[in-house]
């Protein structure tokens, strides 16, 4: 899952940076005799780091910007291939119709709110987020998701909306075809 890859990459990079800071800190006490060549080497290293950073930046953005969840970025699908569902948020409950799908179906949630900002977050049967969008008063956000696993999914509110924010849940049932 995306989250697991992100966690692994993040913890490795954070650890590497922390190690560099620790290494410089522990070695600081012994002064180098002549600083000028050291700093020259450091600036050359920085140029290489900058090039590396740019390559990573370009690569990561090229890869991730290719699959945006926004309506105008979605591949066009015939109407018969998607199952629209109205998802309306209100302090403090969801009304989702229909809320049952089959494996392989692509649901197209039309998400809105009757009062304040809410957040429509779709959790799979293992309780990991698979898709989300904001539920805004005055707007309808379209979120497409193709169900690949059967089970009971949950919709949690993920935008703080008041005292019962943590209780604002709904279930979506996905069955085998």
């Amino acid at each position, binding site marked *: 899952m*995306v989250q697991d890859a992100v966690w692994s990459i993040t913890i490795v990079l954070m650890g590497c940076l922390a190690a560099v800071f620790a290494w410089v800190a522990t*070695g*600081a006490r012994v002064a180098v005799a002549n600083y000028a060549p050291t700093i020259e080497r*450091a600036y050359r290293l920085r140029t290489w780091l900058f090039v590396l950073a740019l390559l990573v930046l370009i690569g990561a953005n090229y890869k991730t910007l290719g699959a945006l969840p926004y309506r105008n970025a979605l591949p066009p699908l015939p109407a018969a291939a998607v199952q629209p569902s109205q998802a309306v948020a209100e302090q403090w409950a969801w009304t989702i119709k229909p809320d049952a799908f089959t494996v392989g179906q692509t649901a197209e949630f039309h998400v809105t709110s009757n009062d304040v900002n809410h957040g429509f977050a779709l959790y799979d049967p293992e309780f990991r987020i698979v898709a989300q969008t904001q539920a805004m*008063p005055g*707007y309808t956000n379209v979120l497409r998701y193709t169900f690949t696993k059967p089970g009971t999914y949950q919709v949690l509110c993920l935008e703080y909306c008041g005292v019962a924010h*943590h209780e604002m849940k709904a279930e979506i049932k996905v069955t085998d075809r």
Partner: protein
Amino acid sequence: MTMAATAGRSGINARAAVLAYVAAAGIVVLLMMLLGLTMRLAQAQWLNVPPDLFYVIMTMHGAGMVGIAGLSGAAVMWYFVRRHVPVSTAVFLVNLVCFLIGAVLILGAGFIGGFGAGWTFLFPLPAHSGSLWSANAAACYLAGLLVIGVGFLLLHLDIARGILSVYGGLGAALGWKQAFGLASDNEGPPPAVTASTMVLIVNILGILLGAAVLVVSLVNLYVPSFAFNALAAKNMIYFFGHVFINATIYMAVIAVYEILPVYTHRPWKTNAAFYFAWVLSTIMVLTVYTHHLLMDFAMPTWALVAGQIISWLSGLPVLLVTAFGTLTNVYRSGLRWNLAAALVFLGVAGWAIGVIPAIADGTIAVNSVMHNTQWVPGHFHTYLLLGMVAMFLGFMTYLTTPQPRYGFGWVGFWLYVGGGVLFVLAFLLAGSASVPRRYAVHVPDWLPYDRAGSLGAGLVVIGALILVARFFSSVRAAALAPDAS
């Protein structure tokens, strides 16, 4: 121009004014940390806190921490920039008074009025309490933020006036000519001036937009028919919030530029790369705010794509100029570590390391599954608790001389670091497990993360208490000692 014995036209001692800021910030940050600890303990089910009170505490903690980050950053910035430009001690103190008035209004709104809409007061939630708080309580909160904003606006305008009187223009004070190789590095402004210029540019804009949406929200409370587009309000709130909180780090980093060289005996290099980084940061802090709106599908796609790309670009100046500059300044410098130097060094480490999870969340494909999970407080506590606040604690320690190389302060330092690492990692791991943020009640599966986070938070509070207590025990010496540099 040094700070020592400079009373200024108002007759108020500038050093005493800075110490007042630092003392206020020290006390309030401890109180806000206790509120944060309470939240973690409640989520861990080690403390029984009813949901309505949890959300009040959450609101107070957010507003208080953002406010104190501003106050402490302003103390650092003002202390150092006034070596180079004339500023008014009276205006500096007016800001403190505004802060204290605003804080009283905000605390009253929460703990008396029950206001719990989150520090971000996301329109139109303040007006939809579900009978938890009255319109007057919400108005008290919004008015409190407005008063604090007015104070900061006055402070930035005064510093701008001082900067313009010496440098003639904001571009010159930013070092834009040096940034583009059009003038010699030696003629560039000192780091404190460059940083202060960047901060006043972004904060004046941020505060004005924040004030506008606060006023809109206030009117809406009493005149519900005064409708306002919720997405426009969200843009204004997140523009203000993003700019203001990031500006606190850019203010606090001045402590790094000024304090570290005192102990490494290597001056901070202000070369073209330095000025270019600050010019870029000015632009990027203002334009990246849409990374808070990546799940608002109603936004124009180009704005959200820009939010992602600029998020990634924003990491470059932090890592390759500030962090790199810090590391090369310290590297084999002969530095004998003391508490002040260690804290500001930690602050840069925290900021740089915090960039990683921040950029991750600023990537739309990641944000889709991590927005509003505990990954979010995970990343911002990394570069606020272990970044900005550490820089401030370093400044606070620096003000009291002599610098201890041993002693109980180091116990505080290591508790702060160790506890802080545990605290933020617990949040990040929980976020990767899809644990939502801002939930008063957690399910059993999430409790291990909450309990680890609570332990970390507890250690941080003890560490911070030791460091702040150390300052207070030496504050008389700080008031009387000559300026440390």
